[in-house]
């Protein structure tokens, strides 16, 4: 009796489900809200000036950069080069510059006012909260319908969000791929659905670049090359060039920051300051007590040879580093990190952290949306667009308060 009712029930539900689907029909396209007539939309949209907008730290939200980076020619086989040769990392560092754009939609050239965009980040974190805020500011300037989604670091959920976004047929999808390697499949799906796509923040693997209009975001490798030179100069000033060993605390394995913030400096210093020796690199993730334990153990292992530490994160990792250094009484170690959180800037202000990179969270989101608006306005979009680079030291850290996150 029990069995029969459950089976009957299930069949009933299944029938209802199928029936409802056919009743609901296929995928619907929805109208985009446009103002009266296409041309006036474009004119209005071109008239919008976002250069005056500021992020929470008082810095301009959009900084127009005329000169992008010098891109060297791609070696024929980067993998064959040694790991400390900068060109070994060409495919990761310069992904997008030699992309084979396929099936990219044409710009409708009818202005950005009222367009619907779906903004998918990678996970929940105060950084992404700030990033979404910056994007929202630009979207509001253009009166766009802005829908932010976050999969909280879960790939299955991000895929689901992409599917649902495709279902909604928006005017553009903006995406931070969770993982460089999974990005090509995600980008391809969106591309095949005919929806314009901009990837941003983390560099996907090169194949993904074929399917998007462009990639915007921080030039992680470039910033860290700049940072490492400043680092080497400071270490030379404090310690001279004898017996200088450094260690790297890495980002989450597999993503572009993992490579940029560790192998960027290593490959840069091998040319610029070859007297620096790499002692160790570890990935303790982002807990302060783990970094603390790691650095304490490094000090035990390497003793005075450890003269510099490069961290992929300037908040939790940096705090752990300094707890360990203070405990051991080693204030001579030169520490650099990727910024720029409040905690990191505080450490710079206190003179502990020597230098951090300026990586505007709000600017990241804002640049992506601004590029989308430019595309709607029919402007020419380069394949890669970088955020401005800057190294923050004690001299100018005050200018970046109040912090974005």
């Amino acid at each position: 009796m029990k069995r029969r009712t459950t089976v009957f029930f299930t069949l009933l539900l299944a029938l209802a489900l199928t029936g409802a689907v056919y009743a609901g029909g296929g995928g619907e396209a929805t109208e985009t809200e446009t103002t009266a007539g296409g041309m006036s939309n474009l004119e209005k949209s071109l008239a919008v000036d976002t250069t005056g907008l500021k992020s929470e730290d008082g810095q301009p939200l959009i900084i127009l950069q005329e000169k992008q980076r010098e891109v060297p020619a791609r070696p024929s086989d980067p993998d064959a080069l040694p790991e400390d040769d900068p060109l070994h990392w060409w495919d990761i560092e310069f992904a997008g510059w030699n992309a084979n754009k396929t099936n990219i939609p044409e710009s409708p050239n009818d202005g950005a006012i009222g367009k619907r965009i779906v903004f998918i980040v990678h996970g929940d974190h105060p950084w992404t909260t700030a990033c979404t805020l910056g994007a929202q500011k630009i979207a509001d300037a253009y009166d766009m319908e802005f829908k932010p989604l976050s999969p909280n670091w879960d790939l299955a959920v991000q895929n689901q969000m992409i599917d649902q976004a495709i279902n909604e047929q928006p005017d553009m999808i903006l995406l931070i791929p969770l993982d460089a390697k999974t990005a090509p499949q995600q980008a391809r799906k969106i591309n095949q659905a005919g929806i314009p796509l901009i990837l941003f923040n983390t560099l996907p693997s090169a194949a993904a670049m074929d399917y998007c209009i462009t990639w915007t975001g921080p030039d992680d490798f470039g910033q860290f090359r700049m940072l490492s030179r400043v680092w080497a100069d400071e270490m030379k000033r404090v310690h001279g060039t004898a017996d200088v060993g450094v260690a790297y605390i890495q980002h989450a394995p597999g993503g572009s920051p993992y490579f940029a913030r560790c192998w960027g400096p290593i490959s840069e210093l091998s040319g610029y300051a070859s007297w620096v020796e790499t002692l160790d690199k570890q990935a303790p993730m982002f807990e302060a007590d783990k970094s603390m334990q790691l650095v304490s153990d490094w000090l035990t292992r390497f003793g005075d040879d450890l003269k510099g530490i490069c961290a992929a994160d300037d908040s939790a990792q940096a705090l752990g580093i300094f707890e360990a250094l203070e405990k051991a009484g080693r204030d001579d170690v030169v520490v650099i990190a990727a910024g720029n959180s409040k905690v990191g800037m505080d450490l710079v202000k206190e003179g502990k952290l020597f230098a951090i990179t300026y990586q505007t969270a709000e600017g990241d989101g804002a640049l992506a949306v601004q590029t989308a608006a430019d595309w709607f306005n029919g402007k020419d979009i380069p394949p890669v667009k970088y955020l401005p680079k800057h190294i923050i030291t004690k001299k100018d850290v005050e200018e970046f308060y109040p912090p974005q996150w």
Partner: protein
Amino acid sequence: MEQTKLAAVDSRLLSHSIVNRVFVTIGVYLIAIVLVVLGIVLQLAGAINNFLTAQNMLNIIDAVSMLGIVAVGMAFVTYSGHYADLSVPTTMAMTGIVAVEMLKFGFVVAVLSALAVGFVVGLINAIAVGKFRANPIIWTLAVNYMSLGVIRLVWVNKQIYPDMTASTVRASEMFDAIFRLRFFDKIALPVVMMIILVIVLQFVMRRTKFGVQLKMTGAARTPARFSGINVELMIAIAFIICALTATVGGLAVTSLNKVGAWYNGEGYEFKAVTAVVIGGVTLAGGRGSIIGVLGGVLVIGILNNILTLLGVGTFSQDMIRGAIFIIVVFVNARSLRKMGRDYE
């Protein structure tokens, strides 16, 4: 899941050998000593250096102090036969962020409100698991989710900073000092807190009526109830103790990170259970001691230290730790069984 074991074990199969007896009582310290000896051997062999230095030993204790604080509280939950309290990470995060928020009324108010919040969470767990006998793992998991949702809804996915919310500079400094204060420049406050908690809670577990009654509750709940023990009250107190130690741990972690956020304390529940079980508190309940838990925490610390000094990567360390975890529990359980004392 109350099943009675089949009767009498053949006493000829029992083995009350010295090894088994010693292992069951202070087994975990045996492991710790073995590890230390291993470290010394490796140092003498030149594979690692500076293992047996005061600084290194101090580093080990520093590294595990927060885990120790949380683990000794979790031990009570396990001791009462309720496996684990999986709501510990969000309790840590929530009490931490509440403390930071309340710093605008001063340091004392902040700490007290954190303790109050921790107490409430412990109480919620206590009622559901103690009185209504909900499954502890699932219930505390649900509480974990709800607390996480609450934190993120109330603070709108942002993190808050103690030096920005504090009413006075002094208050903010005191909050920072929770993690950073050092006695004689060497011994950190969390370490002191851990040691005090270990001593106090060991006393509670062994020498108070509550502790003894809890042991009976954990070992055999229904007989305990029929002996007149207020079983629900015992379990309630165990969960509240766990939540309160999680609060103290949460304050330390939040102080370390200098930020009140929803992700503080992530991962502590499984780490604490590992330490508790390695320390000899069996999952079935009613067996073990807080001193053992301290030993478990130390074992984890020494193991991590040796592996890092050897240059083993973080993830290979995970593998080794997982394997050792299973082996330790196996040997422990086997010794108990051989002595006929495993009433599982």
